[in-house]
């Protein structure tokens, strides 16, 4: 599978969610040699990007319009690596309980969705904030 690197910076606003989601879908559609369900992969990439960026905008960057979000989407050695960088003090990214126990909560499904759809998820500090790294094995 080819090597690919896309780097995007957008203002800290939810109106850019659709734009980045579409870029993610296009990456899934463009991948060479992917044998799985491409439409499903596209939807999942769009979804984890949307969830991760929403968390970064609302919780880490606290809706501050002067901050920005950086997103990198890479394909390397059969792995899809998505990183969402925030400029904040971070947010609580704990593994939540199964949705069975909180079926009528209005919030808290985003982290569960990301963990369900990606093979590896890590949230760590950087020089200027935090990064959420999400990896999916494409083989």
């Amino acid at each position, binding site marked *: 599978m080819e090597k690919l690197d896309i780097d995007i910076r957008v203002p800290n606003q939810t109106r850019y969610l*659709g734009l980045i989601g579409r870029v993610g879908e296009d990456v899934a559609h463009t991948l060479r040699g992917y044998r799985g369900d491409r439409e499903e992969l596209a939807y999942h990439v769009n*979804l984890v990007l949307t969830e991760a960026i929403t968390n970064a905008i609302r919780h880490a960057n606290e809706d501050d319009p002067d901050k920005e979000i950086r997103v990198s989407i890479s394909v390397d050695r059969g792995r899809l690596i998505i990183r969402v960088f925030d400029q904040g003090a971070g947010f609580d990214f704990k593994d939540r309980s199964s949705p069975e126990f909180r*079926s009528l909560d209005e919030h808290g499904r985003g982290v569960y969705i990301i963990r369900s759809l990606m093979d590896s998820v890590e949230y760590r500090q950087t020089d200027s904030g935090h990064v959420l790294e999400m990896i999916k094995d494409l083989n």
Partner: protein
Amino acid sequence: MIVQIEEKDTAVLITVKEERLDAHNSGELKTQMLNLFEEGKNSLVVNLEEVRFVDSSGLGALVSGFKNASARSGSLKLCNLQPQVKSMFELTRLHRVFEIFPNVDEALASFS
């Protein structure tokens, strides 16, 4: 967000006129539903025919409507879910919470 609101005999039909229901526009759906509850309209059908993509915020808005309707002895039901949208309800187990119908007519008829 553009939602189309129509009063039918048995319930109020809310048709979401957006391809994406996400953190950017789900607050508006929530507000529209709250307006209906304030007017005493507690039997709602949300038609998701045009929605191709829903995230956890979109699901949260629908859960909010469901809870508010139930608390007022009404009900919020869904219809016309596209396959990927349906899979989101299954992933989050919300398909066990909502009554989901294949089309508008069946959803409306379920209220009579």
